[in-house]
């Protein structure tokens, strides 16, 4: 069934009438995602995407009128925390926030509120989630995928596309690709997604793409050693990153000597997970892991 999103997903797009929201909603519809509503305060009653999607003023109204069960947020950083909170209040169980630049202390509060409400948040600062041939929620280009048995989870955007393309080109298809986001505090961790993949009957192997900063890859390694028997391959970006600098992503920083690519690699290898030197090596390592 893949994880998080599928053919049953009824998507709401917050910020659908903005430039990003509009562009990506078109792409999502083209992929086959069912976008049932849009929300832009003040534009309720209008329709978006050539008349195909009704626009509402509030999430609550949109959900009541359309039965939306997931949202994708394309709203500027200053308003994104509020949009995430509105989504949770509106009763949506799944929220994906694409926005980059959300202040960390705002995100801290949003994280705890959504967690307490049992709302699954993906992101922010992420490309979203695509279940191949089922639904695309976010901005991952649809044409790089092929359907297959490998789940992918990543902190990155275009690096995710690079890996997916390498897999597709090698004939290794994907179930679901999840971008958890590049910020220091994101709604869902590697461990939680790995747990979902571990329990998904359609996912037979898992690829994890990490980067410097924080300890989520190390936590994932410990989790996988205990719980995950499916073959796994990882790639960690940032071996050449200098310490103490934010490498683009707010969460990609080696702090006080911790969060290096080496330490993540070591933790993953100690857990029996092969770590690729280059994205292009991932298909081969997956094959090795699967026959092992």
């Amino acid at each position, binding site marked *: 069934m893949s994880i998080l999103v599928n053919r049953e997903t009824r998507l709401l797009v917050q910020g659908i009438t903005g430039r990003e929201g509009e*562009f990506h909603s078109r792409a999502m519809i083209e992929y086959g995602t069912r976008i049932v509503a849009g929300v832009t305060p003040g534009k309720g009653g209008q329709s978006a995407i050539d008349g195909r999607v009704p626009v509402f003023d509030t999430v609550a109204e949109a959900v009541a009128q359309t039965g939306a069960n997931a949202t994708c947020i394309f709203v500027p*950083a*200053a308003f994104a925390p509020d949009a995430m909170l509105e989504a949770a209040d509106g009763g949506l169980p799944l929220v994906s926030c694409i926005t980059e*630049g*959300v*202040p*960390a*202390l*705002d995100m*801290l*509060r949003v*994280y*705890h*509120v959504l967690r307490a409400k049992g709302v699954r948040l993906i992101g922010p600062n992420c490309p979203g989630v695509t279940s191949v041939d089922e639904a695309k929620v976010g*901005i*991952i*280009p649809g044409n*790089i995928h092929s359907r297959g048995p490998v789940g992918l989870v*990543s*902190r*990155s*955007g*275009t*690096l*995710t*596309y*690079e890996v997916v*393309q390498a897999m597709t080109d090698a004939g290794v298809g994907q179930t679901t690709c999840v971008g958890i986001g*590049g910020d*220091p*505090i994101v709604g869902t961790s590697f461990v939680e997604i790995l747990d979902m993949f571990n329990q998904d009957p359609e996912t037979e192997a898992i690829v994890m*793409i990490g*980067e*410097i900063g*924080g*300890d989520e890859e190390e936590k994932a390694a410990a989790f996988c050693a205990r719980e995950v028997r499916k073959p796994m391959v990882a*790639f960690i*970006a*940032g*071996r*050449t*990153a*200098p310490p103490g*600098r*934010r*490498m*683009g*992503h*707010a*969460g*990609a920083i080696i702090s*006080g000597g911790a969060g290096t*690519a080496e330490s993540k690699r070591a933790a993953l290898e100690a857990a029996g997970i092969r770590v690729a*030197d*280059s*994205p*292009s090596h991932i298909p081969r390592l997956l094959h090795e892991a699967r026959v092992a």
Partner: protein
Amino acid sequence: MKLQEYRSKEILARHGVPIVAGRTATTPEEAREAASEIGGPVIVKAQVLVGGRGKAGGVKLAATPEEAEQRAREIIGLDIKGVTVKTLLVAPAAEIAKEYYLAFVLDRATRAVTIIASAEGGVEIEETARTNPEAILRMPLHPLIGLQEHQVRRVAFFLGLPPELRKDFAVLMRGLNDAFFGSDADLAEINPMVVTAEGTLLALDAKIVLDESALPRHPDLEAMRDLNEEEPSEVAAREAGISFIKLEGSIGCMVNGAGLAMTTMDLVKLAGGEPANFLDIGGGAKADRVAAAFRIILDDPNVKAILINIFGGITRGDEVAHGIVEARQSLTRDVPMVVRIVGTNADEAREILAKANLITADSLDDAAAKAVEAARAGAVA
């Protein structure tokens, strides 16, 4: 964004934290004047964002204004870990009876703002964590309720503060809390917090690191950015809206996406070269942005070749290719460029680049190898 000590103290003072009021000086004469105004012995401190200024001779006592002038002469222009000292803080010297460590930090691992307190003040907290972890109290704040009075008390008792100072401590700690949240900090650290010989509690040193993502809502704090301690190319990049970090190597990189940009640097190294920079050109890049990126990369004389890696999603490969060809015409210096564009309109991109006689590659590994080779060839020639 790191803030200088004197700026951090300004922010703390605004929120009610007792600090030692000092004056900044950029010349020895100003230091003498500051010391005169203050009266009595002063401490002259280099204002630099790098650590280890004490060991480097950047913090000195001066008993008189003349001595302050002399100490200032010694410290201004001093090189501390690659930074040239330009500004000093001249502050009344305090007679220290006891030193403590107190900080608020955003701990991503636990997803909580955490109070860190220790009676081992005046030393690196990482050092204490290694040698005497029992001496550190770590206490997370409730993410929604924030700092509670019982937490303030717990810290006061943990630090062993005398009863007569508990009220002052509550004011100080509440002020540090307010400064942290009010300025959207990642870290607000007082090391040391001291009790003076006279029995006064105050912050002797302060370090605030601000969350870059929150700066748009703090224009007054953005104005505290110390451009003297930033690479000119990085300053220019920020102004152009390009994410850029200067490194030491000879292979310039231009990539769309931070994770992919880090990977590109990693693959350059794997291919035997050294990246000259990290550069994320962002999504939807067009000619003017590409040109700005080239200028920033080529400002570095070490750059012998440029590797461009674009995975087009929203970003259209043909637009980037046009941008590269256009920008190349206006460059002051010609370096070999290896271009790898995949994704949206990659075929059109390849045609455009081939016509312009640029080296292209299909795979990222291949592009990295070609760039390293081009830089080597250039270095020989």
